[in-house]
């Protein structure tokens, strides 16, 4: 059992490695994509410097906490797009019948699909997240918590994208809806939860899983709370299991388009 898991993980890592190596054929474009993504993210700080000139706190957050929020969002989103980029375009694979080539492989279908693409600019997102963490002041405990919550955030974002993508097994034209929901999620993730009250607060905690992906982790990193910690890790596991179940339920409805395609 353990050997099988280890082999599967090795295949996934090799898949990601070859995705990255393929993009490195043109090193200038590869490096430019990463650096410019980091610069692109850094420009957002201007917005927050301006807002903090107007008020000392925004939604109960100081500049340091906003940087932590941004860092965690960038790192989680970045890592999910580096390791599992195909989860964000699953709809297109289902609609165009391109899942066939994954179904005949002897390894886990879902993991093979998810790791079959890598978004190179997302490496810049991940590195930017780490830069912001160090800019907030290095602290060993916070560093490990950050890495752990980057992991849970990655799982939550990927699982959410996977569930939305899997809806294409049942409904048509879901790809745009899925993209809109994921981009909406990212938009919410980059603003403090304190500005949302009433229905909007319910929305970010219970409909779009932003609260568990970044808001709770930032609160824990600011002031540790064991209950909240268990909530976040438990939710990440729950959402991951839910996404796997939805995908495999949907896969039973999948019909091939007889498209001839080789995956190397």
């Amino acid at each position, binding site marked *: 059992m353990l050997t099988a898991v280890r082999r599967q993980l090795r295949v996934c890592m090799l898949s990601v490695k070859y995705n990255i190596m393929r993009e490195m054929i*043109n090193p*200038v*474009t590869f490096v*430019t*994509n990463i*650096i*410019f*993504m980091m*610069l*692109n993210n850094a*420009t*957002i700080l*201007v*917005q927050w410097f*301006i*807002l903090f000139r*107007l*008020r000392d706190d*925004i*939604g109960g957050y100081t500049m340091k906490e906003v940087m932590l929020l941004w860092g965690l969002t960038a790192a989680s989103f970045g890592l999910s797009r580096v390791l599992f980029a195909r989860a964000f375009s699953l709809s297109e694979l289902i609609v165009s019948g391109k899942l066939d080539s994954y179904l005949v492989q002897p390894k886990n279908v879902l993991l093979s699909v998810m790791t079959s693409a890598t978004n190179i*600019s997302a490496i810049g997102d991940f590195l930017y997240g780490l830069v912001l963490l160090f800019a907030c002041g290095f602290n060993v405990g916070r560093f490990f918590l950050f890495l752990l919550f980057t992991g849970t955030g990655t799982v939550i974002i990927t699982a959410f994208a996977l569930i939305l993508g899997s809806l294409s097994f049942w409904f048509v034209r879901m790809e*745009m*809806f899925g993209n*809109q*929901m994921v*981009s*909406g999620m990212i*938009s*919410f993730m980059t*603003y403090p939860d*304190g*500005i*949302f*009250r009433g229905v*909007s607060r319910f929305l970010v905690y219970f409909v779009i899983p932003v609260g568990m992906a970044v808001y709770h982790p930032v609160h824990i990193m600011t002031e540790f709370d064991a209950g909240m910690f268990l909530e976040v890790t438990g939710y990440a596991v729950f959402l991951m299991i839910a996404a796997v179940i939805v995908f495999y339920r949907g896969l039973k409805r999948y019909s091939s388009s007889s498209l001839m395609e080789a995956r190397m």
Partner: protein
Amino acid sequence: MNRCMKKGMPGQLRQQGYGEMCRVPGRKYAVIYRAVLMENMQYAANIAMGFFSYFVFIFIFIKLWEYIYRTPGELIAGYTKEQMIWYVMMTEMIWFGSNTGAVARQVTADIRGGNIAYLMNKPYHYALYILAKYTGEWSIRLPMYALLAAVIGAAMVGAVPGFRLVTLPVMILCVVLGVTINAVFKICISLFSFWIEDATPFQWLYDKLILVVGTVFPIEIFPVSLQPLFKLTPIYTVCYGPAKLIVDFRAEKCIEILSVQVLYLAAGCALMFLVYRKGVKKLYVNGG
């Protein structure tokens, strides 16, 4: 065979008097514009699917400004809360309504993929062809987003303070000029693909500059020392100018903004033609 009838010409172009069309300057671009416009009208429902992102963005900013404005009637950088929210709604309307693929993705893809070799031999100027195509795309999107912005604004914020219907034509002109200036600069950036293969990262930076500095805040909110600098950038003509006129119309400001837009457009077009002329000399075609 007439040069206009080469393979790859849009179907509608082939059905018209091409010889005559090629002789009348500008008419071919009008035909391209009309063909793209009619094509995009078929996808109005798809465009409407993008309303969700716009709504989320505006919703967040309404909540943000509601938090920052703590007392009714408070002014920040000379703007009331309603004006500030309307400002963001207008700049985002311009952004979402004109954010189509032609000027950024297509130019880069054409150059990277080699399709430029076919397109540059057509009896039109490639950059103007892209501009005509882009105009056809946003001519459907922008009015749809304008309608959405008006509905959301009226429902969640109330009417634009001091809005007069008589000023609407000049506001529309200002928005159209702003969108065209933005397109010209984005084409210029995309044309850098002749040298660096993929100019997308430069597009990100330009977009972020416009988004963060231009769409989220009016220029008055920045430190006084930075304001003259921002007035020299495309932000002033692309986002700030049109939105400022909509939320706080003044005749003298209108003349100033329109004058700067005309100057900017002329300079941008000159730059676009220059970059294109230099760029095509760097083009290598590897068969195919």
